[in-house]
């Protein structure tokens, strides 16, 4: 999506709003900390098969329920699988699910918000009723109901999470576009006969890109938590596939919880660290995009 606008010749280039936002983002200490935590995690999770010798489903019968050692840095689980490899593979799955569901819900959220704001009063009120309904109902309950219908696996989990999370975004997008609709340049574009796709993609999208970026970032953290929660209850990613949630599910057995803490503490720690880092980054982005944040 081209966001840059071509500038006339001879006009001195000033810093665009995106550049300034980026500067503010980098100046934010918490956001930098988030990046410092997140980038190594991303690297490790995406490349671990190149440098870690043990596969996530390889079984070492001599090491069942063994604590951390030189061969298995983070110990091994009840059937002798390496916890390190499973934490890394679990991170990969969790992130795939999170990114996939956020991509879907961002598209749905933007489109619904855009249609509500540009589609006239009747469309607006029906769509917003629906959004209200989806927002007042307790999210996790809905997640459970949807999950019970959709079944387990990666695709159903992505679908369930994305179906659940778009309403918040569409409300923010609607608010922004309602205001935009009355601006002179949009009125002018309409007067010149611009159609919906042009209005939405050429004017609506660039002017709500900050909302989308902040939403997507924070929602990734949220989706990781939702996926982990679902898998923890046995409704998300089914074992033998590893995910942080279903590794934590092991700790529902008292023996694992009490005797083999490394089997659930490491995935738990990875989960919290990742979500924390993404939240820091998301917060930093929000402050960076909000011009008022210069004031305090």
């Amino acid at each position: 999506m081209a966001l840059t606008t071509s500038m006339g010749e001879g006009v001195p280039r000033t810093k665009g709003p995106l550049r300034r936002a980026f500067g503010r983002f980098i100046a934010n200490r918490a956001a930098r900390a988030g990046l410092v935590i997140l980038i190594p995690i991303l690297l490790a999770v995406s490349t671990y098969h190149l440098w870690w010798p043990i596969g996530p489903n390889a079984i070492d019968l001599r090491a069942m329920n063994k604590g951390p050692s030189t061969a298995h840095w983070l110990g091994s689980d009840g059937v002798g699988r390496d916890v390190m490899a499973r934490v890394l593979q679990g991170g990969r799955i969790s992130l795939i699910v999170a990114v996939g569901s956020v991509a879907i819900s961002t598209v749905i959220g933007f489109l619904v918000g855009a249609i509500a704001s540009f589609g006239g009063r009747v469309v607006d009120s029906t769509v917003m009723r629906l959004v209200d309904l989806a927002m007042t109902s307790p999210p996790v309950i809905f997640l459970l109901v949807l999950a019970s219908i959709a079944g387990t696996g990666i695709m159903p989990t992505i679908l369930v999470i994305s179906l659940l999370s778009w309403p918040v975004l569409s409300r923010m997008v609607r608010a922004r576009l309602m205001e935009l609709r009355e601006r002179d340049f949009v009125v002018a574009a309409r007067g010149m006969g611009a159609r919906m796709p042009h209005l939405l993609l050429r004017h609506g999208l660039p002017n709500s890109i900050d909302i989308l970026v902040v939403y997507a970032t924070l929602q990734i953290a949220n989706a990781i938590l939702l996926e982990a929660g679902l898998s923890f209850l046995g409704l998300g990613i089914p074992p033998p596939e590893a995910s942080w949630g279903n590794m934590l599910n092991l700790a529902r057995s008292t023996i694992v919880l009490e005797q083999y803490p490394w089997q659930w503490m490491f995935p738990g720690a990875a989960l919290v660290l990742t979500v924390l880092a993404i939240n820091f980054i998301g917060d930093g982005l929000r402050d960076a995009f909000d011009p008022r944040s210069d004031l305090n």
Partner: protein
Amino acid sequence: MVLALSVLIFLLLRLAPGDPIDAYINPSVPLSPQDLEALRLRLSLDQPLPIQYLGWLRAALSGDFGYSIQRSGVAVLPLVLGRVGPTVLLMGTGLAIAIVVGIAGGIVSAVRRNAGPDISLSVLSFVGISSPAFLTALLGLYFFSVLLRWAPSGGMQTPGTPFSVFDVLTHLILPACLLSIGHAAMIMRYMRSSLLEVLGQDYVRTARAKGVREFWVIMKHATRNALLPVITLIGSTIGIAVGGAIFLESVFNWPGMGLLLVNAVGTRDYPVIMGATLVVGACVILVNLLTDIAYAFVDPRVRVS
């Protein structure tokens, strides 16, 4: 709102696999095909969807949510209603702790802005928001029940002993505290930013200028106004609290709505899922209404408009 929710749940119920009539058959009573046909007629399952919905609604309003598939012969409604009490107890205690801790922390953090207490509280609240309820539940269980043996590890009462308030309290305190963590963190962050905004306003300066003690300026003048957005937040987090309660109940084996729902989802017991969802949904909508009323109570300006 409840009606719209019921439409949604009805449609989801139809999406679920299986013949919808199965939900209404008490498995312990044998039915002849004629009876089955009569039941089908009574629930208007031979009619188009909107009329089916009306039939379902009529049955639901008269308290007939059908029978649990998993526990043979148990009607859904009493099963669900029996679980409301423990959940309300757990959530109520948890939220009360969260509100007290969150508001106090928010005030401290706003007054000591950018100083030591503020930074450490902010970091703590970030960690609180980022850790899922089930993970804090596991950690809490591990440290307080397994390592320190301070609290019982689950259930609502010690089995085999007569009911006593003290016994329930000892079982309640750990899950309630753990439930409050995430919410306390959220309320704290909100309270902090809202109080900071209020503290910058003119009337606060006026109060200070006329010689009101700093303590009273903050407690009386500023906090009252800063509480308004926080009340809205608390109302809107009830739904999320229900989610947290589900995880805590399943970790601590707390015999509430969440445990019922999780077990029902695990065994694909659709009548129970739908009944529980409807009851929880209705409760959440009711609480949202109550927060709106509470809002008018705290802010007299709402009543004028």
